[in-house]
Structures are given as structure tokens and as C-alpha cells.
């Protein structure tokens, strides 16, 4: 039984990985200028083999410098936010927690804005500043959400809303006094993959896999934490230590994603909720499947954001909010019942 369940999960993972590869190629072909899949493969092949194939130079530029880094970045952002959501839901013992709800994203956006205005603007300083502030926000929310040693969902939601509003106000304040950086900072409040580059992809690739491996290593602990702190302690989990590691990991995953593409709400809520229906709640399966599933989900949203309106792009955060907000309300209502 256990083996067949394992096999089933492996099969889901393989199928989803194929779907992801398909979506990556499909997404690259999509856009104002349509580029055939054969040409995309030729461009990639020419890059790696340095063979001199007959390739249209403008298409080469579009694929290699614009679309490819954007699509890969979007996949990693989707994976990062999804597994952050899975882990936060585990430690808050609530399926409504996600980096947006818990203020982690707002902390990162605030940190990134500060770096843009006050520090030397580079991918590393922005990412680092976003990470520091998202860690502070995560721990603050975690302690504010506690009521007599237990996480109270009302406290969690209220603390998340208040902290997010406060940090957004600070970001707006920074925007008013730094009009020359307005567009850069504005991106952080709406979420967009415009302007993605290979450097951002490399940094995000490192943090996403680092975060994933830390969380996957702790999958047993994450399972046990959902039983409650008292049970987890009695089973042998170093509860406070594990929670700190998870909060730092989710902050890293969220912060680097947010620092490059801005706040994209509810991804960490939607993806785990959907894939839990497929895998159940065991984090051993939920984490890797949400990783790949989150990447696919983000590509779908990004494709919609690029193609829904002709010659214009809708910020991807709007699309995820339109899907995520009703789901959030549904979960809230389910909890009430």
C-alpha cells in the first residue's frame, strides 16, 4: 500500500515535470512576436553547442534575453511562493497561512524599497535587504499570532493585515519622496516579471533550491507540527528550533522572489490547497509536488497577464489575487462551519 502510494506520488511528480517543461517552451513561444517551438529549440541548442545555425537575430534576442529568463524566473517564483505557503501552513497549523497573509511578502517589499532608495541598487543588496525585513516581519507576526502558547488564527490574520498595511504605507511614503524610483518601487506592490534577467534567475535558482532542500529535510517535523506544539514536543521535535529554521527558510524563499518581481499575492495559498487534493497532507509529497505545481501555476498566470489584453500587460499579482481572494474567503467560511 505504502509502496503503491509512493509510486503514485512519483508518477504525479513526473507527469507534472513534463507539463512544466511543456509550459516553459509554450510560454517562450507566446507573445507579441510568435516564435515557433522548433526555432526556440534551435536558439537554445545554438547557445549551448555554439553551433552556427541560421537563426533570426532579433528572435534570438527575444528568446534568450527577454523571454527565457522571464519564464524561468516566473517558474522559480511560483515554486518558491508555493513551498513557502506549504511550510507556513504547517507551522501555523492553518491552511490559510501564506507569505502574503503573514506579512512576509510585505516585509520583503519594504526591504527591497529601502535598498532601491538608500543602498546601492543591485540584485544582491535588494535581495539581502528584502530577506532581512521579511525575517523580521515573519517573526513579528509569529509572536503576535500566539495566544497562550497557541497560534490563534484571528490574531494571525489581524496581525498580518495590520503589518502589511503599515509596511505598504511605508513603501508608499518612500515612493512619494523618491519619485525618480517610482516605477521600480511600484513594481513591488503589484508584481511583474517584466525586466527579469539571468542574474536574478541564478540567485533565485540558488535560494529556491536551498529553501526547498531545507524544508524537504524537515518534512517529518512539518507533519508532526500540524498536531500542535504540545504533541510535537512529546513526539520529540525541537519545536522552537525547527520553527525558527522554517521561518527563516520561508523568508528567504519569499524575499528573493518578491525582491525581483514584487508582491504576488495568494500563490502560497492556492497551490498547496489544490495539490493537497492530489497528494494529501503529507509534506513528503506535498512539498515537491507544490514546487513543480507552483511553477506551472505561475507560468499560466504570467501567460494570462501577457496575453489577456493586446499590446499591454496586466500585473500578474492582479490575476493571482482574483483567483486567491475567493479561495481565501472560502477557507475562512469553511473554518467557521
Amino acid at each position: 500500500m505504502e509502496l503503491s502510494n509512493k509510486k503514485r506520488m512519483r508518477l504525479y511528480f513526473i507527469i507534472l515535470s513534463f507539463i512544466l517543461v511543456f509550459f516553459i517552451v509554450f510560454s517562450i513561444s507566446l507573445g507579441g512576436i510568435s516564435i515557433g517551438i522548433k526555432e526556440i529549440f534551435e536558439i537554445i541548442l545554438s547557445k549551448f553547442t555554439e553551433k552556427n545555425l541560421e537563426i533570426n537575430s532579433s528572435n534570438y534576442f527575444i528568446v534568450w534575453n527577454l523571454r527565457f529568463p522571464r519564464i524561468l524566473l516566473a517558474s522559480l517564483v511560483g515554486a518558491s511562493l508555493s513551498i513557502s505557503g506549504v511550510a507556513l501552513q504547517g507551522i501555523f497549523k492553518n491552511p490559510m497561512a501564506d507569505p502574503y497573509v503573514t506579512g512576509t511578502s510585505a516585509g520583503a517589499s519594504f526591504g527591497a524599497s529601502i535598498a532601491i532608495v538608500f543602498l546601492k541598487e543591485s540584485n544582491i543588496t535588494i535581495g539581502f535587504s528584502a530577506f532581512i525585513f521579511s525575517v523580521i516581519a515573519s517573526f513579528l507576526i509569529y509572536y503576535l499570532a500566539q495566544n497562550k502558547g497557541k497560534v490563534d488564527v484571528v490574531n494571525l490574520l489581524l496581525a498580518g493585515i495590520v503589518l502589511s498595511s503599515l509596511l505598504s504605507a511605508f513603501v508608499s511614503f518612500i515612493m512619494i519622496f523618491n519619485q525618480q524610483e517610482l516605477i521600480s518601487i511600484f513594481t513591488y506592490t503589484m508584481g511583474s516579471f517584466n525586466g527579469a534577467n539571468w542574474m536574478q534567475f541564478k540567485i533565485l535558482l540558488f535560494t529556491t533550491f536551498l529553501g526547498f532542500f531545507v524544508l524537504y529535510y524537515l518534512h517529518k517535523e512539518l507533519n508532526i507540527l500540524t498536531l500542535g506544539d504540545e504533541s510535537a514536543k512529546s513526539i520529540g521535535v525541537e519545536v522552537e528550533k525547527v520553527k525558527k529554521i522554517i521561518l527563516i527558510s520561508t523568508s528567504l524563499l519569499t524575499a528573493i522572489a518578491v525582491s525581483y518581481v514584487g508582491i504576488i499575492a495568494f500563490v502560497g495559498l492556492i497551490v498547496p490547497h489544490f495539490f493537497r487534493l492530489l497528494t494529501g497532507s503529507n509534506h513528503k509529497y506535498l512539498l515537491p509536488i507544490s514546487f513543480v505545481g507552483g511553477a506551472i501555476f505561475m507560468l499560466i498566470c504570467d501567460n494570462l497577464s501577457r496575453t489577456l489584453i493586446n499590446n499591454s500587460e496586466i500585473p500578474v499579482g492582479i490575476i493571482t489575487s482574483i483567483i486567491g481572494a475567493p479561495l481565501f474567503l472560502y477557507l475562512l467560511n469553511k473554518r467557521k462551519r
Partner: protein
Amino acid sequence: MLISVKNLNFSYEKSILKDISLNIEKGQFISIIGPNGAGKSTLLKCMCGILHNYNGEIYIDNKDLNKYKRKNLAQKIAYIPQEQNINFDFTVEEIISMGFYSRLDSFYIKNELEELMKETDTDYLKGRSINSISGGEKQRVFLARALAQKSPILFLDEPISNLDIRHQHQIMNLCKNLSKEKNYTIISVLHDINLASMYSDKIAIIKNGTLVDFNIKDKILNKELLSKVYNFNMDIISYKNNIIILPEID
């Protein structure tokens, strides 16, 4: 002595436990009884290492409780809390398997898991979601999860609250058998004095954070002491070698 508590004091905002000392021997079934808010659950949580900012000393197997690492303590003590609401749909099998976490011999869990499920009559629930089963079934699953730790001391905080009479006795019988046949030491907070009377070897009675008495059940279960502790007149009758406690009838 398996468990030794010396001058235990614990306070949240006010003093909850006051100068409690007691010794528990291996293989005993101990019940902790007392009125609401007496500090029974707090005492239990201190003894099993959930609450550690107490004053006084607690020794498990002659070692200071605070000196145990979590995993090592979990090999000595298993605990089932009063309420366990799980917001995620884990299967019964997954919940029970979580109990193997602290074990070093986790390679053998497959066979043991099946045995445990048979022993606690949870095998037919294997693939079911924990949130789709009844209160009595849940309690047996949590007991199986605790037994998976293979720790010789089992702490239970009101394990039979919200259960009907059949399931109450099913759980209590399971615990009693563990104590008699496998030499488990069971320490349980109970509200029902009659169940404490029926199953315990010794009873600790607590009022206002103070240990009123800790003794064999025949000495604890007397009309005067119980009426005084609960501030309520009670009668005691004997039926088939059991002591039955009733409200005083005029």
C-alpha cells in the same frame, strides 16, 4: 523510582502548582483527580516536559527532566493532550507513523505499525482521514500514535472526555492492559472518579494547586476527603469489589 517530583511550583500569572512532591513507581496506573482548575493538567505537562519553566525538581529514571534532549525524552515519555484539532487531512496511518519519529530503529516500523493498529483496533481506519472518524476512534488513533514511541511512560490528559461509556471503558481497558501486561506506567488526568476508582492502582488528588493526598485508591476514596475536596457531599458504596462514588442521596 521511575518518576520523582520534588517541591514542584509553577505559575503563569498566578501560582498554579504549590510545592508538590510525589514518587511514581514503574508499572503503576496513576490517576490524577480534583476539581476544575485544580492544576491537574499543569502537573501532567510539567511531569512530561511540555512545561519546563517550573521551580523544583523532576527526575525521570533518576535523570533531571530538563537535562533530556527532546528525542531522548520522547523515548521515555509519550503524551496525549486533552484536545487535538488537526486542520489537515492526514490519514490514520500517517498520524500513527508520526509516533516513530524519535525511534532509532525506524526501519522496522512497517510490521510494528500493523501490530499497533491491531492492538488499538484502528487497522480498519488505516486509509481514512483523521477528520472523518468518530471521537472514540480518534482517541484510539492518538493512543496508537503514542504507543508507537515505545516509551514506557504514558501521560494522558483526560483521554475519555467526550466519549460514550463503551468507548470510555475501551480506552481505559487498553491502558490498564498496557500497565499490567507490558509494564507501562500510565499517568492520567481523569474527571470521572468512578473510572479512576475502577482502573487505578494509586490516585493523586489535587485542589488549588496543592497535592491533597497521593495514595492507593482505597485510602483516597473516602467520603470525607472527597466531599471536602470537591466541596460537594458524596456517598460511597461498594459493588463487586469496586468503590462507587455517588452524590449524597437524602
